[in-house]
């Protein structure tokens, strides 16, 4: 009797435990309301993506909920975390905000759910050419361009005027800019620390000179380095010349976006290549007393400088693409969220809210966008004509090889540096050298 009672008590306890556990599991994927929860891994922003998520869920008639998860600040750490989870087939990753250079790697590893033709047509309508190139892998749309970014040439009107040059002229070149800065005893702000920003600069120069850093990328690790080419040599010549000239900022070898901005805003500032955020940052600087209104009024912008006077430049490209995780349990709702978040109205809304330029062209015709961004037209043109960084599953290796061999900029010479980069890159890809 006693043992029997104990046994049934134990059974009851076991049943209760099972119930409690399964209830826990159910809530984990369904929430109390029973609605599917879409997890969206985002890069940190000012909360704009979170607000988009709420709006999109509401537009879908609240048939799903969105759980926004913020990834680390650093793009390479964002990649690391996502790769680690996806390698373990994490089904909780529904939607990801992905840095465009990593799309090829993720798609090649089959971490991304490709879009079918009908969806692809809707997702790519009116998208500018630059970001569009980064959204495909092996001729299949694997990512939806969400927002895009580019660099402009920023200059001080007073410096250009004193030298009698027009940086906004179509044929303004790097060589002319270096000569001008030298003659005016001013510096050119660039990104030349050993980091991704340096790769952005090198890539823009190589692309503007009509070349590419690596070709035949679908061959994976057997891809062919193309940096040891006339275009690569041109890029090396410009970087080395600038670094060894009087126009080089003192801390050039450790200079990132912010350091370049502060050099440009200083008395020695003449020119700078940088992302559009510097404009609003300078505006805030005036409000905070960092720079005077006079300095702010002296700032002007133009399209990225050319390598050759007769060849339009290919400015750098940044931004974010939205992708759907291959192991997602709610691909339909995820697709709905991606379509909604990248729609034209939401492109405009996000550009105004978070300050990130839209991927779709017509967004720049919006009067509110025109008002907030006096340089909207240059940005649209630049994004459209931009030269993306190499689209290869081995992007990390390619970029790091270039950064290592081209740093510091004062040691860059043509054709030695591009040659060295090509050899090192190919050795790294084939597993003959360590990064």
């Amino acid at each position, binding site marked *: 009797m006693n043992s029997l009672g104990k046994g049934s008590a134990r059974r009851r306890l076991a049943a209760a435990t099972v119930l409690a556990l399964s209830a826990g599991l159910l809530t984990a994927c369904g929430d109390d309301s029973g609605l599917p929860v879409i997890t969206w891994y985002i890069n940190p922003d000012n909360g704009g993506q979170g607000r988009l998520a709420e709006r999109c869920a509401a537009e879908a008639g609240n048939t799903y909920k969105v759980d926004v998860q913020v990834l680390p600040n650093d793009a390479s750490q964002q990649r*690391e975390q996502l790769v680690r989870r996806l390698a373990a087939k994490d089904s909780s990753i529904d939607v990801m905000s992905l840095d465009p250079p990593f799309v090829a790697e*993720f798609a*090649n*590893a089959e971490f991304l759910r490709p879009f079918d033709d009908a969806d692809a047509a809707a997702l790519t309508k009116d998208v500018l050419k630059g970001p569009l190139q980064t959204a495909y892998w092996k001729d299949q749309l694997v990512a939806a361009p969400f927002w895009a970014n580019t660099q402009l040439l920023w200059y001080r009107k007073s410096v250009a005027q004193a030298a009698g040059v027009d940086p906004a002229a179509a044929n303004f070149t790097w060589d002319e800019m270096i000569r001008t800065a030298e003659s005016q005893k001013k510096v050119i702000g660039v990104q030349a620390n050993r980091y991704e920003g340096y790769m952005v600069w090198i890539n823009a120069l190589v692309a503007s000179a009509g070349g590419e850093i690596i070709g035949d990328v679908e061959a*994976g690790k057997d891809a062919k380095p193309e940096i040891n080419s006339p275009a690569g040599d041109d890029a090396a010549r410009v970087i080395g010349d600038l670094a060894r000239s009087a126009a080089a900022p003192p801390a050039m070898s450790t200079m990132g976006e912010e350091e370049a901005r502060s050099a440009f805003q200083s008395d020695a500032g003449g020119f700078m290549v940088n992302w559009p955020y510097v404009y609003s940052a300078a505006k805030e600087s005036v409000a905070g007393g960092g720079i005077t209104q006079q300095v702010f009024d002296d700032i002007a912008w133009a399209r990225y400088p050319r390598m050759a006077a007769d060849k339009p430049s290919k400015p750098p490209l940044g931004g974010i693409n939205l992708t759907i995780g291959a192991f997602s349990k709610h691909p339909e709702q995820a697709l709905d969220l991606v379509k909604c978040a990248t729609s034209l109205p939401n492109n405009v809304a996000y550009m105004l809210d978070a300050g990130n330029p839209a991927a779709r062209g017509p967004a720049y015709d919006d009067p509110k966008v025109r008002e907030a961004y006096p340089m909207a037209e240059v940005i649209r043109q630049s994004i459209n004509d931009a030269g993306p960084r190499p689209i290869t*599953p*081995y992007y*990390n290796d390619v970029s790091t090889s270039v950064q290592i061999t081209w740093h510091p900029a004062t040691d860059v010479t043509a054709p030695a540096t591009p040659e060295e980069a090509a050899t090192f890159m190919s050795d790294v890809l084939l*597993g003959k050298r*360590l990064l």
Partner: protein
Amino acid sequence: MTMTDVRVAPPAPEPEEVTDRARHERRLGLTLSAPAFLVMVFVTAYPLIYAVVLSLYNYRLTDPEGREFVGLRNYATVLTDSVWWSDFVTTLIITVASVAIELVLGFAFAFVMYRIIQGRSLVRTGILIPYGIVTVVSAYIWQFAFQLDSGFVNQWFGLGDFNFFGQRWSALFVIILSEIWKTTPFISLLLLAGLVQVPEEYQEAARVDGATPWQRLWRVTLPNMKAAIMVALLFRTLDAWRIFDNPFIMTRGANNTETLSFLAYRQNVTLVNLGTGSAVSVLLFLTVVIIAFIFVKGFRTDLSQVRGDR
């Protein structure tokens, strides 16, 4: 040793009963330890063998189609690459410097903990606190202390704008300092265990013979706790050799401060280069085995000392 031999051998009373019991005990022991043994095989041997297999491939996690068998080529690549050797030297510097200083400091702490009469538990707890702090947290503490924007060290010592993390030697200095602060308590704890095992009678006998305190330390205390010292050294050396957290937090491996564990992490996790990464991991494991072998065979370290039984 010889005494017990002598005592056991001549009487030999009912040897069968003893062996029977011994056999039972042995069987019981095996049965009891079998589950643990199997779990150990599963969680240690399997990943180890898998890593060895992976190290024979050129294999990226994100390029499954490009997987290719390359034999021992990954090992040749790693061992002939300057990155490996630079990291090897960095790891060696950190290990030798931190273990040497920790041994001396740890000994001093062990003495304090042993001799102190008033507030004994307070002092012992105080000394052990750094060891209880998570390494990542302690790495941040030391980083913040030395950083240009948040640090107070430069101000205290009038170093101006000296960037400790800007070059190799000063960065290694901070890393080693943090290691020492964090793990000296561990070594002093092991040494304390050795210290209490030195019989007080030896000390008294030496004192009666007129030995100075210095002579007693070198002739009586140290020789009698040699085993404990060796165990402490072995544990700390192996620990220091696998250092990862401090450089990871403080420098991210910049300025030649990358260690071997960091290299393995970068190849495996960042580059998802599982072939080369596994080769680095296996080589790291082999260096650990070699260090352990040198200590156990070369210096005749008696591992049973850790348990406190002699």
